Structures are given as C-alpha cells and as structure tokens.
C-alpha cells in the first residue's frame, strides 16, 4: 500500500468546507474517476435492485463505483473461493469500480451481536459472525477495488453510553490495524484500497479522536459511520462532521454512510462530505414512490423564487398524503417524492416528472405506473428504480454545478421550502388534506 492510487483533486472549496472535485485513479488499473460531491451506485450483490444490464444502461452518467455489501456476499464466500476471479467477474460487472462496505445501508442491522473481536452481518441465510481474519479472507475472495475496514458501528442509537462509544472507537482502530497488517501481507489485495472508519457516536471528543487516529494509518479515505438518518438531528450531525473534517487530511475522500435524503445530503456536503451511498432511490422505489423534487437552478434568483412559489402552490395542491418527515423510520415517505399508488394518479397521463429524460418518463405515464403498482406487477419496481436513480444522479450533478457557480443557497432554499410545505400539510382522518 505504498501511497494510495486514489487521488482527490479538489477544484474548489466553498466557505472552507464544501468540496468540489474529482476522485481519480479509481479501480485497480486506475482508469476510472468519480466527481464529488457524488454518490455510489447501490446494489444487491452487484446488481442495481430490479435492474438488468439492459435497463441499467438506459441511464446516463451512471456512477463509476458500485457498492457491494459484505453482508450479502459473505454467504457466498466458498463459491467465490472456488471461482477465483473475484466478485466483479463473478457478477458480470465488466466496467465498474467495486467498493465493498460492511453493511447494507438500506437494511436494518439488529444490535447486540458485537464483541471485542467480532462483528456480525446479516445475509439471506441469517447472521454471519466475522473476526478480522474471516473478514479479510472474504475480502481476498471478493477482490474489490476498495473496501471499508471492519468496524464496530453499533453506536447509532441515541442512548449509547460514553463508555460504549469509547470502546467502539478503540475496537474500530484495533480492527483497522489488524486489517492493514493482513492486507499488506496479501498478494491478492495488492492495489486494493482501504477506507478507515470514523466512529464515536454523538460525542465530539470521541469523533475527533477517532478521526485523528484513523488519519494516522495508511488509508485511502474515510467512512463516517453512525450518522444514519434517524440516529440524530442534522444540527448535531453537521457539528460532528465539521469537527471530524478538521482532523482529516484534505486530499482524501470522506464517505458518509446511511444518509441519502436530499436535504441531509446538502447539509452534509456543506459540512465537508464528499461521497454518499446511493441507497435512497431504492428506498423510495420500495414504497412505490417516485422522486419528484425540483432542483433546477438554471433560472436567475428572482425568477426562481417566483417559480418556486408556483411550484409549491401546485405541490401543496397535490397534497402529499403523508406530509410528515419522520426521522426515525427510513421506510416512511419523504417530501421529495410522490406516492404513485394514490388514486389521484389513476388517470394522470403525464410522465412522472415533466421534462425528465429517463427511460420511464420518456416512455410511460403516471397512470401506467399506478396500474402496475396496484396490480403488484414487477415492472413497477423496474421503472421506478430507473426514474429514481436518474433523478438522484441528476440531483448530485446539479449539486456540483451549484457548488461551482455559487448557487448552493438557491438549491438549499428549494429544499427548505419543500420541506416547510410538506410539514404544513396534514391529513385529516377522512383523507382530505388541510393546511
């Protein structure tokens, strides 16, 4: 691991914190790059949920990095060992960088199974307990381009004690050292990068210590763990991330785990985060919803505000039935999406999002998606996943554009108004919305 090949070239740092740049030298031959702030391509065992290569490649600007979770691969270790060619080849992924994370950000991981020497992951066949030795043996068979080092991330619950938090930081550092030792002696893992994991829950000093200590190790980048949606409010999250960022070198990427909601993404970019896991579009898809939030920043500011108002009046008219943004439950609908199962879309012949260029919006109408959802047809998941992924990729692209052109405020205001509107809509028992 003599000097990592991954290079973060920053073109702009706004207000000392938000970073715009390109992550270069990705992949074992170093030919891939990823613009930051950006998101990874979320997958189930290397496959974007519901999609085949044909349907995936209807998308433009697909992120160059696919996230594979150890939790889904671990049970296939024996198979991969016999296959020998690594996970990428096994999964038929020819042209993507593979990043292996420990857990699936869209799946709950029951607490209470972590020990000094082990962490547990849940696959389709149940729990698998991992020591560092086992964790590294699996990495050798996966042969990812980069992976998250083993970590004790069981500290996201708000009532976790200071003692437990300190222990998680210590254990995670010990796991990292052990991972690095095995890594450096492994022929199979030559050219593979390791991301260290920053723990420490909601305690600032522990967060800073975790970051400082991890940064001393030869890692290519950092995973910020324990910040997932529902674990803390954004003010605290911002505060902690800013404190962590101060301890981390400027030239290495920071990947935030478990956060995907657009408003939270914006706030975390402002705090200094570069990369996000791309699981949010999948969660939206699973509840039969379509991302519909507007992120157009091409208008001049004054007109944009007017247009925003129009937009919101119209949105309020559509009346989001859920209104509330519930922090605790990631399966709850957010104000960034429309619920296509709703009866009002029964005869709505518009595309999901007017002007959207994705395969779903170019070819199909809300009424058709509504029909597919109420009849439980598999194509609903396929088309929604295509649209939601396209919309999310577009959001990140606009986010970078906003950073480059000093328009981040405008983009943020769109989100703020959106959320304010949705909060003001409540649903009365008979199903009619009232403001």
């Amino acid at each position, binding site marked *: 691991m003599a000097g990592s090949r991954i290079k973060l070239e920053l073109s702009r740092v706004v207000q000392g914190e938000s970073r715009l740049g390109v992550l270069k030298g990705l992949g074992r031959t170093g030919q891939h790059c990823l613009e930051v702030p950006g998101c990874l391509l979320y997958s189930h*065992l290397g496959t974007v949920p*519901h999609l085949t290569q044909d349907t995936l490649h209807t998308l433009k600007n697909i992120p160059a990095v696919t996230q594979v979770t150890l939790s*889904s691969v671990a049970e296939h270790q024996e198979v991969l060992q016999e*296959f020998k060619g690594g996970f990428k080849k096994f999964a*038929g992924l020819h042209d993507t960088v593979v990043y292996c994370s420990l857990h699936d950000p869209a799946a709950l991981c029951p607490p209470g199974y972590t020990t000094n020497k082990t962490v547990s992951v849940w*696959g389709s066949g149940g729990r698998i307990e991992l020591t560092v030795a086992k964790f590294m043996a699996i990495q050798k068979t996966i042969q990812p381009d980069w992976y998250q080092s083993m970590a004790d991330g069981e500290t996201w619950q708000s009532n976790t004690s200071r003692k437990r938090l300190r222990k998680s930081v210590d254990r995670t550092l010990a796991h990292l050292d052990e991972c690095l030792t095995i890594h450096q002696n492994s022929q199979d893992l030559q050219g593979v990068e390791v991301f260290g994991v920053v723990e420490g829950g909601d305690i600032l000093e522990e967060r800073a210590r975790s970051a400082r200590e991890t940064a001393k190790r030869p890692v290519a980048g950092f995973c910020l763990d324990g910040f997932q949606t529902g674990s803390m409010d954004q003010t605290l999250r911002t505060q902690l991330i800013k404190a962590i960022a101060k301890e981390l070198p400027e030239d290495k990427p920071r990947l935030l785990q478990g956060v995907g909601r657009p408003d939270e993404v914006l706030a975390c970019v402002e705090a200094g985060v570069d990369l996000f896991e791309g699981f949010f579009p999948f969660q939206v898809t699973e509840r039969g919803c379509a991302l519909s939030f507007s992120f157009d920043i091409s208008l001049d500011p004054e007109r944009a505000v007017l247009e925003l108002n129009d937009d919101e009046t119209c949105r309020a008219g559509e009346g989001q039935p859920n209104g509330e943004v519930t922090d605790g439950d990631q399966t709850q609908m957010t104000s960034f999406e429309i619920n296509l199962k709703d009866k009002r879309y*029964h005869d709505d012949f518009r595309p999901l999002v007017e002007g959207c260029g994705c395969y779903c919006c170019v070819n199909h109408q809300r009424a058709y998606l509504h029909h597919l959802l109420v009849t439980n*047809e598999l194509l609903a998941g396929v088309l929604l996943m295509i649209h939601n992924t396209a919309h999310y990729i577009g959001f990140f692209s606009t986010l970078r554009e906003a950073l480059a052109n000093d328009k981040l405020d405008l983009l943020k205001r769109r989100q703020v108004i959106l959320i304010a509107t949705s909060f003001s809509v409540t649903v009365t028992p008979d199903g009619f919305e009232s403001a």
Partner: protein
Amino acid sequence: MASLAQRKTLCVASPLTLRIVAECPVTKARACDLILPHSAVSTPVFMPVGTQGTLKGITVDQLDGLGCQICLGNTYHLGMRPGPDLIEKANGLHGFMNWKKNLLTDSGGFQMVSLVELSEVNEEGVKFKSPYDGKEILLSPEKSISIQNSLGSDIMMQLDDVVSSTVTGPRVEEAMHRSIRWLDRCIAANKNPDKQNLFAIIQGGLNADLRKACLDEMTQRNVPGFAIGGLSGGEEKDDFWRMVTLSTDHLPREKPRYLMGVGYAVDLVVCVALGCDMFDCVFPTRTARFGSALVPWGSLQVKHKQYAKDFQPIDPDCPCPTCKRHSRAYLHALFKSDTSAMHHITIHNIAYQLTLMRSVRQSIVDGRFPEFIRSFMKQMFPSPDQYPSWAVDALASVNVTLE
C-alpha cells in the same frame, strides 16, 4: 344467430393478410407472414403473455429487443383494472403500455370460469361476482367485444362457452352450439372490423363429431382467423393431438390457426407439424419466476444447490442477454438477493421460445423440417425410448418417423 343479410354487410376486408411463405412437403407445417395492423409477424409464432398490460418485469424495449412481434393481454384482468375507459383514454392498450408491435386479447371467458368462483353461464353470457368489489357483472359476447374494442388489440377473441376439457356429456355439446351463437353476436358487436381482427374459437371438447360440427359451422363465418380452443386443460395428450389435427384438417388454408394455451417446447414442435401457426402460454414466463430456465435438453432449476458453483451460462449456445453475461452460479446467488434474478430468467425463457420458433420456421423454409424435428427430439430426450408416445404417434400421423 345473425341473418344472412346481416352477415353480408359485415364482410369488410379484414385488417389481416396471411402470406404462405413455405409449406412442409412432408408434414402439415407451414411458414407464413402474418401482416397485422402494427407489424408483420413471422409464423409459426409463440406469443408471450402480458396479462395485466406488462410482461412480468420486462420493459417493452427488452421484449422488442428479443424479437417479439406479438404478445397477449388479458381482457378479464384489464377490464377489471384499470378498466376499459381508462385504457381507451390512453389510446388503447398499445398506448397504455407503450407497445408498438401487435397485441392479441382473449375474451375474458376463460379467466371467469377458471379464476372466479360462483360464475354462472347462461345464454346471455357469463355472470360472476367481481373479486374486487363483489358487484355482480355479466360478461356477454357484446360486453367482451366492447372491452376488446377499447383495448384496441390487433386480434380479438370471441367469447366462447368454455368447458373443462375433462368434462363429457351434453354440456360439451351445449357449449359448442352456444359458442357458435356467441360468435355471431361477437361479429355483430365488433365496432372496428377495419382495425381489429376477430378470431373464432373452435370448441367441441374431445369429441370428434362435435369438433367437426363446430368446424363446419364456424368456417362458414367470415372471420379472419381461427383458434383451436378447449384443449390444454389436463386432457390426455392422445386426445389432445387428435383434436388438433382434426381441426387443422378442416380449417381453411388461407387463414391463420391459433392453438390456445400451448407452450411446452415438444408440444410446439409437434403442433407446428400438425399445421398450427400461433401459440400462447404463461408457462415460460411463470416458470422463470420460480427459477426454471428452459434449455434444449429440458429445463434447469437455477435455484437448486447443484448450480451454486456452476460457472457456465444457463445455455452456452444461447445468445440472450442473460446467457451472454451471467453464470448459473451468479443467478443462483442473485435469487437470494434481488427480484432481478427472475427478470434474467424471464428474458432467457422468452428468448428460448422465440429462438425455437425462428429455427422451426427456418427449417420449414429450407425444406428440412422433418430433420429438424428429429434432431430437436434427440436433444430434448436422453434416449429415444423416452420420447412420449403421443408425440411419436402424432408425428407419425404426418409422416415423420423418429428412430
């Protein structure tokens, strides 16, 4: 029954042309170009079933990419949800699902009898209770055609009085005669004879005399095509093929023949030899979702443990997108993680069916269909003593002997 005068006025040129490209000199097989309103269809053809206006997880572009020229929609399901009015507003089923090639819709009668409890048939139509709101609904021949007119399919099926193929006795005869009367009502009810083809359905159960009587009557009607119905419902295969071959013997050469509900590879090849042009079946797509992949030697259960470490494609000779990229082992693993595993097998199975029918057609065109049958059977069964006797007999009846 429609009067002769009435029938005459309905003799508009149908929106269908059948060009016979080649006829097998040995069997009754033929290769045709069937020109329908939305595109030409090369027959013999297998038509995948897209029950609710979608083909089980496959996009219309993927289906088109596999070379599919015609697929099915189900009138019963679509009539219930989202309903004919909405589909009409969406420019028919083509517009609603955005499918540019041809569509065939069934009459809805079969589902009513097979899916809905408490359905009751009388001369007026089929009476049943909606499973969605419990309302009593009457599906008459007029209603079926009216829904199919809203769906705008290229081929509509008459409402027939469906009786299980294992039933015998006077009920079969009653159903046959009623199906003829209903055919006349369907013909009279068709609002779009210039855009939508209405096919008659030959009934008569497993009784040769009844079948023959039905054929005699129905072939006198001016319909653009015929279906052979009331089979593929659990009857003995020996009865099945005899009814098929009897039907094709009496159907006019210049009109397409559609054998309903048939989709197993062996059945397809044999029934092409018996003179059928069109087939449909839910089997290839349904079985795919359970992990069963169709291959020239039968099927392969991807979810079985024996494939966990099998790094070959499902069928090394298959050119489908699934076989080009993925191994049995990966698909086996993916079945535990994501629904896309089903889509991969569905794509493969549709590709298998369509490729099989293209090869059948090519061999007819090249004048080597009997040889094709022999090598097909050899591949499908480990040894000749495993050939099903009905298939051997059926093929012998059209002069093909299997060694």
